[in-house]
């Protein structure tokens, strides 16, 4: 996939992700897979980011996430369908979407010093 096409796929997918349609996937199984498949090693157990970028809350829409996982940029290794089938990606995305927003910074005294 060329970089230009990838950008359009991502952009479209992000826009799609903003509608209110219920995304597919099993969040509970997604959490298990997120830990088992090592996603948390770079992104943190609640997708807060680590050596890799933040994934949650408000994850990429499923097509964009799927496209990125199959052909990632930067340091992320590719997860092929053989290693992480489409259905498992959907479950992982459901888990990421289930993660609540963090408390507002203004409500965290420790971050206002």
């Amino acid at each position, binding site marked *: 996939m060329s970089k230009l096409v990838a950008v359009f796929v991502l952009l479209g997918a992000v826009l799609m992700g903003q509608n209110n349609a219920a995304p597919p996937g099993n969040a509970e199984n997604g959490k298990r897979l997120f830990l088992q*498949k*090592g996603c*948390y*090693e*770079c992104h*943190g*157990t*609640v997708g*807060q*980011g*680590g*050596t890799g970028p*933040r994934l949650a809350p408000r994850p990429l829409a499923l097509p964009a996430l799927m496209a990125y996982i199959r052909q990632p940029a930067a*340091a*992320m*290794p*590719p*997860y*092929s369908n*053989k*290693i992480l089938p489409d259905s498992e990606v959907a479950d992982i995305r459901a888990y990421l979407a289930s993660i609540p927003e*963090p*408390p*507002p*910074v203004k409500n*965290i005294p*420790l*971050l*206002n*010093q």
Partner: protein
Amino acid sequence: MAKQKKSPVDRRGFLRGVAGAAALAAQVPSAVAQVRAVSAPDSSAAEAPSNARPGSDFMLDVIKSLGFEYIFAMPGSSFAGFHESVLNYGGNKNPEYITCMHEESSVAMANGYFKIEGKPIMVCAHGTVGLQHAAMAIYDAFCDHVPVYILLGNTLDATRRPGEVGWVHSVQDAAAMVRDITKWDDTPVSLPHFAESAIRAYKIAMTPPMMPVVLVADTEMQDQSMPPGTDTRIPKLSLSSPPAGDSAAVEEVAKLLVAAENPVIVASRAARTPAGLKLIVELAETLQAGVVDQHRRLNFPTRHPLSQNLRTQGKPAIVPAAWNTDVILGLESSDFYATIRQAKQRGNVKAISINSGDLYSKSNYQNFQRYAEADLSIAADAEATLPALIETCKRLITADRKRAFEARGAKLAEAHRNAMEKTRADAAYGWDASPISTSRLSAELWEQLKNEDWSLVTEGFWIREWPLRLWNFDKHYQYIGGAGGEGVGYTAPAAVGAAIANKKHGRLSVAIQPDGDLMVANGVLWTAAHHRVPLLMVMHNNRAYHQEVMGLQGLANRRQRGVDNIGIGTKIYDPFIDYSKLAQSMGVQAEGPLSDPKDLSAAIRRGIDVVKRGEPYLIDTLTQPR
């Protein structure tokens, strides 16, 4: 570490051991007496008690003249003569013997001590097995431009080596195995020679680029009585002034900086001393230029409006192309190639390097990094060059340039403020997570440190630089950087060494300690307890060699084999290590493991209370991977 072999004890050796240990027989365990016996040379007659001064007393006189505060060492028979002089002739004061449990720890502790105190520490070790243990930490110091003063014991005279162990602990050229990673070494053959070389070694170690040096002390020279008429003059130490940049080159650098529209100062090991930090602030404020601190030392206050580190989101190794920089000034940059690469690709960027590393290079180890295509390179110490550079810049600045600088400074300050807001927002993600997020851990610590005179004695890399992003660092001693050679096993001993240096200043030393690193050299916990080292050690316990987890995971995925097996050899589980019990077993008060962030505040308070009473404290916290 020298292990005593169970070899038969010959009679003369036994006699010497008895004679040497007689006065202490009531207190000294029999095993120690046997060790002394095994150490006796089997070709010599037993030495009668003597009031004559042994050579090691004079060696200590020389060493005392250099002002060492401590000796960090694990004991070894090849420098036992010197050790005894330190305790009984020198009164175990200046230097005081600090008991270490591994030579690698001795050297890493010396590394941490220097970065706080600005003075080197003496390390003693066997010339063979001790030096082999010490090697990784010596490499760290070599890469990190840290002087460590190493004294090796060795027996050159083959007829004086005590039995089988004495032979396997002897070597023709003791310093050879670390010659590639030290700046200078010598094997003196007489006491006057020792005196001259000891002073020379100190001078060489302390001249930028500073690096470890090795002095070999022959056991016979230590043990034998000083011959009548021995020249006991101790040469005067005359330290070299650090090499400053050539004035014409400095003028050229100043012209480029004053004319630049968007210059960036990148500092890595530039601030050797507190004065260095102040000079970098002065240069930045004179030019109203942004500063990126690569944090091999604390070069620039983290909350200074001209600090642009937060814009790098904790990854200050590279000047991003998007910054549209036109001049990059690298001050003692450890990897200037990587620093300037992206910006250079945009073109029309002048890269200037001032680096004392250019004055001293070796071939074998590749710590010199890729060749950086600088437009102007000055082989000089950055800190020593800054006063002239600042004055020249001030002379060249016109009123027009000053107005432009002020406008630039305002924009940079705004960028800093915006980045700070974004950083705080980023820190909130995963705030209540368990395992505990590294941002939460850092924020909880800062809450209780901010009104103390504190010093962070571990590096920020393993926790996404959160302390450096959230805390207000503005004093040189508040940060010591990491291991120059990136060797695992540096962090814990360096923290203890730094805490020893902070102790007399009454500072509160804090370590955020990676678990894998602690397991390389956890004997430093005992050293900290035994010597009453005030140090709050908070574990970053992610139960893995996490850097390797990620690397192996990436490799397995690229090979289409999945990640199911990558925990083998990289994760620390089955069983999990209980670090609080480990610490307690060595006399360090401890608690944990904690996995709920709500428990952190009270634990930190308890820890600080103990540390303020002058003792170490460990909190085991289960943390996110990074």
